[in-house]
């Protein structure tokens, strides 16, 4: 029913017109082609329209091709707000603040690593804390936890986890300025104490992959990606710490909605005017959680390097296991964009969306200034993941944003039912992928069929020009929580 009201703009975009729903201040734009349009949920369309009703929204309420229904904002959603008239919303960031991805490249060839892949995955599984109720190797005292919140990945480097040279290859240098540890609830501190340096569960993973296909050789080589070379991808976020921050602030914001008289079509859109004290507190806490997540991925990367060195007995220089980039895909940021020909500062919400800045953008580190920002898109554990590069078109159309992953097509229970009687680990092993998971049903829930085909998602953003394909990576070993 709701699909009929949408208008196709071009091959890759659908419009949710402003008259789709009462109260919309702007239109919605959903990046899907005719293939992914079939998988579009009516709930997602409704949520794109709901976001368009929020005060101070600038440009369209957008959704990337991996869109699916979330809480309040859709997952795959991008929305920018005016700093004076607009709002900030925890629902536009998500529970897992700074859930994100980092990618390492190496000098190792696939054929060499395959000889010892089982041993490698076993040792990684034993050294990367993962799964429900698992305990990390790090215990943060109150002082240390505050430093994590203030310094992010730099805290980890100061502690000896990785090198200072890693920092410039992390979005925002691995640390957002303006985090305020004094606002954080004691509950968030308590949840965060033992979870630094842990992978978590669900769709989070650590994958050993190889470069399967290269689409843009010049860019790939500049990033250190060569065909059949090994890469490592780490997908996780701010763990219980970030969740508690989100939980705490959903309550603060639901009070703020009444206080400031904001009319909402869905209570999970709870928000506050960006210049209010509630918004300032949330933003400063969100930054603390984002920093917690960057420190987390930095620690996990450090242990991954140690495992590679111990398993292959190769010195770091020969291994060349270096960071390509680290992106956040659940975050809100103040950024400068051109709106109606004028430079304007906006608060851009990306919930299940990746920044995709073009070459020359002032926020890019020197190493990528001429190349553009690497975009890292994780797929499901059986198919592939992708590296793309940011474009000028993304700046014009999507506030410099693109997709973030595959997106589910099957619920967890549907997946478990379909996997009944099957040994998913053996099916994966037959495909040449060694998997280890802590959870009783993680592999069933996370099997390939439960997800959209990542290739379709990436094709839409590539064809739409909001980021360009560089390389395809295929897994040979996966660790899940």
């Amino acid at each position: 029913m709701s699909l009929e009201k949408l208008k196709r703009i071009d091959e890759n975009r659908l419009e949710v017109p402003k008259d789709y729903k009462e109260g919309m201040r702007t239109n919605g734009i959903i990046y899907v082609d005719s293939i992914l349009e079939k998988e579009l949920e009516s709930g997602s369309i409704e949520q794109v329209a709901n976001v368009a009703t929020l005060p101070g929204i600038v440009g369209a309420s957008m959704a990337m091709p991996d869109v699916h229904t979330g809480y309040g904002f859709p997952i795959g959603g991008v929305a920018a707000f005016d700093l004076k008239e607009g709002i900030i919303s925890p629902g536009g960031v998500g529970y897992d603040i700074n859930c994100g991805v980092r990618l390492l490249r190496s000098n190792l060839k696939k054929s060499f690593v395959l000889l010892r892949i089982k041993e490698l995955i076993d040792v990684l599984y034993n050294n990367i804390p993962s799964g429900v109720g698992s305990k990390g190797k790090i215990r943060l005292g109150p002082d240390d936890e505050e430093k994590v919140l203030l310094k992010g990945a730099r805290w980890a480097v100061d502690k000896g986890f990785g090198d200072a040279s890693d920092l410039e290859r992390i979005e925002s240098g691995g640390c957002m300025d303006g985090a305020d540890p004094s606002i954080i609830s004691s509950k968030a501190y308590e949840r965060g104490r033992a979870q630094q340096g842990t992978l978590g569960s669900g769709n989070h993973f650590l994958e050993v992959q190889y470069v399967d296909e290269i689409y843009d050789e010049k860019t790939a080589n500049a990033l250190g990606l060569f065909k059949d070379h090994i890469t490592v991808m780490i997908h996780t976020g701010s763990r219980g710490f970030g969740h508690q921050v989100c939980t705490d602030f959903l309550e603060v914001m639901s009070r703020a909605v009444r206080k400031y008289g904001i009319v909402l079509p869905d209570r999970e859109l709870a928000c506050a005017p960006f210049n209010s004290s509630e918004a300032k507190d949330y933003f400063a806490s969100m930054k603390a959680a984002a920093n917690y997540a960057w420190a987390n991925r930095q620690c996990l990367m450090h242990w991954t390097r140690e495992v590679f060195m111990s398993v292959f007995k190769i010195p770091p220089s020969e291994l060349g296991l270096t960071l390509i980039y680290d992106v956040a895909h659940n975050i809100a940021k103040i950024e400068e964009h051109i709106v109606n020909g004028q430079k304007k500062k906006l608060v851009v919400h990306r919930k299940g969306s990746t920044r995709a800045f073009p070459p020359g953008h002032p926020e890019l580190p020197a190493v990528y200034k001429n190349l553009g920002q690497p975009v890292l898109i994780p797929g499901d554990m059986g198919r592939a993941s992708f590296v793309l590069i940011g474009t000028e078109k993304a700046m014009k159309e999507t506030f410099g944003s693109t997709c973030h992953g595959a997106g589910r097509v099957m619920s967890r229970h549907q997946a478990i039912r379909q996997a009944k009687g099957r040994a998913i680990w053996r099916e994966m092993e037959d495909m040449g992928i060694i998997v280890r998971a802590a959870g009783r049903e993680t592999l069933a829930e996370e099997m390939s069929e439960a997800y959209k085909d990542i290739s379709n998602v990436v094709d839409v953003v590539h064809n739409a020009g909001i980021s360009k394909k560089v390389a395809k990576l295929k897994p040979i070993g996966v660790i899940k929580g």
Partner: protein
Amino acid sequence: MSVVSFNMTFEVLDISGDIGIKASGKTCEEAFVNAGMGMYSLITDIGKIKDEKRMEIEVKADSPESLLVRYLNELIFQFDAYGFIGRGIKILDLRLMISNLKTEISNQQSSIKLKVFGEEFDSDRHEQGLLVKAATYHNIKIEKRNDECIIEVIFDI
């Protein structure tokens, strides 16, 4: 004190991405117990949890829905921060008031007091199920009919 036995009545709600619980009971007390136990059973096989430790929890909120979310988030917090998981829940006191948006916004009218019986989770002994991160307001429902109370709640996984 012995562990309270009860009829666990809940079913899993299927939604893409996350998971929900539909819990019911003759009274709202029973439905609240079943919602909590239903959530625990997503995390692990609660049959293997021992009754070694008790914890008293008290939560207040300005609406029944908000009380339900806060109560479940408190159980999640105790598990995520300290590994404490229950095999049984006993409600000591439950007050559900219908919220009135026109009244004072900080007026906390609904409240729950409960005792959880359980132990500290040990991944060597206990099955690892879903990592439940938060209870949400998404499609949340508390319905009181004549002789039945039905709760629906969706969790962020």
